[in-house]
């Protein structure tokens, strides 16, 4: 009996503490400014990386937070919070709970379009407020240096004849980025995409499998291929960028477009806010991200990671995302993978 009392007491004290404080919390929220006018953050800003520490989202978030803070662009503290799970779905559902709160941002990239279409998240990009896009990265398709194919057309000719003779490897599961970027370009080249064999391998095994000959084509990001190309281990048949890029080695990668395949795939990365943000706060962040994108400090970081500058403001970003989604939808319908 005494023990039960103790548990009850523990519960009671905590509930008491909770009640005692709820008033303050309400008071804080009403301080937000209304429509129009200018807006400034009133408390520390939280940037959610919907993945674990160390990944692409996490790195982008931490680097952006660092530059925004150190260059004095935003006075308030900026903290990066990791919400891991479901390829982003856990983080998105977390943000969706903070409707209209301009102090919660998150970093996003194509998975926010792909994952909902795969039926793995109830929230998609329409459910949030896209603020600004910052960078772009592109996909690359690589084969072993001694492979019989010298350009994308060679490869796709073989695949048109016998699609099952070629195995493609990527890090992520079917229906996600590495798979979709390959399917998108292959379809434009006229390959029967329902016959493409795709294997997913994590933890660096995908490159391993390409190098040891288990698979034929590696669908990945451009940066991942550079060192292997330099060492003459692999060759890049094509990249998904609209035009050739600058930079050592990268400048030699032919685009799909110049090989007569009129298709691109952008691995964009930018920042979103919760649903229902007001115009003043959207304008504030657009402004700050523009300043960040133009800053030298961020340019240095972009160079280091091999990211391309690709600033888009709120409206442009939104239109871009809708267009991206339509494109992917068509592909997934063709593959019979659309689970939305």
């Amino acid at each position, binding site marked *: 009996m005494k023990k039960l009392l*103790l548990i009850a*007491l523990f519960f009671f004290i*905590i509930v008491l503490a909770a009640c005692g404080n709820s008033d303050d919390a309400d008071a804080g929220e009403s301080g937000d400014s209304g429509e129009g006018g200018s807006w400034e953050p009133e408390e520390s800003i939280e940037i959610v990386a919907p993945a674990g520490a160390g990944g692409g989202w996490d790195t982008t978030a931490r680097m952006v937070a660092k530059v925004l803070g150190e260059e004095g662009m935003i006075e308030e503290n900026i903290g990066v919070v990791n919400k891991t799970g479901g390829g982003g779905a856990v983080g998105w559902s977390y943000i969706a709970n903070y409707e209209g709160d301009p102090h919660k941002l998150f970093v996003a990239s194509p998975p926010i379009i792909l994952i909902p279409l795969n039926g793995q998240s109830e929230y998609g990009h329409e459910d949030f407020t896209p603020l600004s896009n910052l960078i772009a990265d592109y996909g690359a398709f690589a084969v072993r240096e001694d492979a019989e194919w010298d350009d994308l057309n060679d490869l796709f000719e073989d695949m048109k004849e016998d699609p099952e003779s070629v195995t493609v490897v990527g890090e992520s599961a*079917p229906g996600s980025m590495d798979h979709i970027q390959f399917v998108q370009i292959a379809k434009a080249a006229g390959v029967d995409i329902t016959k493409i064999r795709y294997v997913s391998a994590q933890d660096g095994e995908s490159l391993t499998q390409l190098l040891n000959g288990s698979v034929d084509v590696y669908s990945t990001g451009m940066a991942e291929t550079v060192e292997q190309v330099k060492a003459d281990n692999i060759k890049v048949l094509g990249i998904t960028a609209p035009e050739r890029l600058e930079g050592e080695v990268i400048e030699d990668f032919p685009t799909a477009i110049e090989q007569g395949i009129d298709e691109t795939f952008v691995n964009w990365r930018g920042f979103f806010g919760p649903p229902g943000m007001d115009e003043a706060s959207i304008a504030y962040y657009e402004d700050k991200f523009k300043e960040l994108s133009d800053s030298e400090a961020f340019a240095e970081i972009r160079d280091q990671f091999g990211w391309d500058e690709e600033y888009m403001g709120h409206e442009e970003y939104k239109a871009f995302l809708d267009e991206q989604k339509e494109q992917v939808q068509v592909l997934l319908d063709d593959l019979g993978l659309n689970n939305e």
Partner: protein
Amino acid sequence: MLKSINSRVSLVLLVIAIVYLIFSYQLPSYAYTEVDADVIPKVLGWLLVFLAILLFFSKDNETEAQRQKRNIPKKEIGMLLGVGALIFIYIFLLEILGFILVSALFIFFCSLFLGYRSHIVNGIVSIAFSAFIYFVFTSLLQISLPSGILPL
């Protein structure tokens, strides 16, 4: 028939295996792979059915000490459930009230519940431990923990 512990346990396992198999057979198929997502689960499910049946008929070869483990006095079961309940409340309130407050209260009450009677030491340890972890995570390592209602 169901006197032996093994046969009773095996029935529970059988139920788990069947539920697992039902869900395995409902998995959607995916056209682009040779061995689909449902193959291994089905194998595992049937394997568990097979093992459960084996267990049902196998002799009870537990040692006396192992059997003794199951004789838990009623009072002690209450103790375990109590700690379980405290953990449950902790998880429930962690993100509502914040890390420091709930952790400190948890350590204090859990120790008290288990019969620790040096209230002052208990209080100091519970607050110091929670505050220390919170400080190290949030300030030194920049890893956010729920701050909750404390003005931090």
